[in-house]
């Protein structure tokens, strides 16, 4: 949830990268079979909502309104219901993000170990400049994330689904070299 005067961590700022291409359904062929299997794990169809949204995000990089509508139709709920759920969770991208979404933990245990310097280094070296803004070349988006559950490996950083441990400011150039 994001709300309140100073609760800005994690927000992705709408970036002009909306694609207007017609929506291609995700749940066809193997993906549909997979969804049908997931549904069986729950006594109610809607139990598979979070996994279905993950499937959309894995296929498309983000969850568009059309994606929400497709999930809604699959699970017999309304698109408005799905949107209500999507907006609760920080990991579903409601806007397209750069090729690499970089999430840096800055919660207190990492903060005392210098996480702010790591964030600064990422913002400077990606050209993003600001949190939540996608770089001009569409390559990077940098956001702060709350505790990643790896506090003994300060500072953990996620690049898409890669989980990197013990990233210090002086390792940032090296990390970015691997994500071009």
């Amino acid at each position: 949830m994001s709300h309140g005067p100073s609760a800005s961590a994690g927000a992705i700022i709408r970036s002009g990268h909306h694609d207007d291409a017609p929506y291609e359904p995700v749940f066809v062929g193997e993906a549909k079979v997979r969804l049908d299997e997931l549904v069986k794990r729950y006594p109610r169809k809607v139990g598979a909502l979070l996994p279905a949204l993950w499937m959309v995000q894995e296929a498309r990089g983000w969850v568009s309104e059309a994606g929400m509508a497709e999930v809604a139709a699959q699970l017999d709920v309304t698109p408005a219901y799905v949107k209500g759920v999507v907006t609760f969770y920080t990991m579903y991208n409601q806007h397209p993000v750069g090729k690499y979404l970089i999430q840096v933990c800055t919660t207190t245990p990492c903060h005392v170990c210098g996480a702010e310097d790591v964030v600064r280094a990422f913002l400077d070296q990606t050209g993003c400049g600001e949190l939540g803004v996608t770089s001009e070349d569409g390559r990077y988006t940098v956001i702060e994330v709350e505790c990643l559950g790896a506090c003994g490996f300060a500072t953990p950083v996620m690049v898409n689904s890669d989980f990197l441990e013990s990233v210090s400011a002086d390792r940032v150039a090296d990390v970015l070299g691997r994500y071009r």
Partner: protein
Amino acid sequence: MGYPYKPHASETLVLSTHFGDPEARTLKGWKDRGGYRALETALGMDPAAIIGVIKESGLRGRGGAGFPTGLKWSFMKPDDGKPHYLCCNADESEPGTFKDREIMRWTPHALIEGCAIGAYAIGAETCYIYIRGEFTEPLQRMEDALAEARAAGIVGRNAMGTGKTINVWVHKGAGAYICGEETALMNSIEGKRGNPRIKPPFPAVAGVFGMPTTINNVETLTAVPHILNQGGAWYKNFARSDNPKSTGTKLWSVCGNIARPGNYEMVMGFPFGEFLRDICGGALPGRELRAIIPGGSSVPIINMEEADRALMDYEGMAAVGTMLGSAGCIVIDNAQSIPRQVARLARFYAHESCAQCTQCREGTAWTTKILERIVAGNGTAEDLDTLLDVADDMTGKTICVLSDSCAVPVVSALQRFRGDFEALITKKTVHTVPVVVS
């Protein structure tokens, strides 16, 4: 143990024995190390007898609240004709805590075994392991291990050839600290927003999908096979002689400004000062330890005088005015500004509030705003009293305790380190903090 996974001689390895050993991850490797013997024993026992052993062991929930596990299991009524559920809480998002991640990365089969035994004991045919979405590696390790366990017939329709159904599924979260709260977790499994529910009804009466449910932390369930293998009396022995209320071993995640961060498995009641200074290596070179948050960010912050006389169990931590919580120990040294760190913690809670309750939504946000203005040098003399006043409104008045959890570090920091806040207000200086090179 610190990294790279070298145990200290004063640790007592039970859950962490195979941390750092990649072979323990596979089914074969796990069986070679004695895995799934406990499940086999359990499936031949009466569920009530299993609960009896867990009660005897004194095992208490490792997710934060410390509720006796055997007692919790006994709330599930056998033969009520309803489907029962077990939910394993692997949301691990309490700042400072990173032990469940290690259990799942290194010994995924240990958790599956604990889940299967727990499910059988409470009469559940389905167990959901709720893993936070950011844990990409633990998610993969658990899925891989579950695929092996299903293929080998350990879990599934005919678990271990006994004809019993024990399905274990991973449910991947999507970024929300609050989903670690047990009723929010159940809503999230049901495909809802992760808002906590009003209790009662308690989960054992109406839990996930409205059915009787037990929720247990990863570490709690992982301890179960060891207890069945070696007996309740064996586990109960890991305790101070004068305190039978806290038993067993506990994983302590130690992070922040400490020489050797890591997960240390300690017997209940070990002296905390010795632990921090000797086993974890004490302060970084040239620094001094100043404050400790011993049980994850939601417990009171203590000073070193208190830390040095604390004992590492539920009662020992309470005796110095704090809590064992999830044993996510955050170490803060003299190079840090305590008001600045508390302000960052408040921002965490403001970000993570589900915003259902007014006291929490407004309280966490205003606490953050006031603390940030103090840190920026714009605080006023009344601000500290306002903070305490807001904290009072946030305590004991909401559906879940996230609100209380934000108030706790603020109030405790004002009790122990008020001078730091006053200095910022009276001198109107912007606190600058030396850069820590990690």
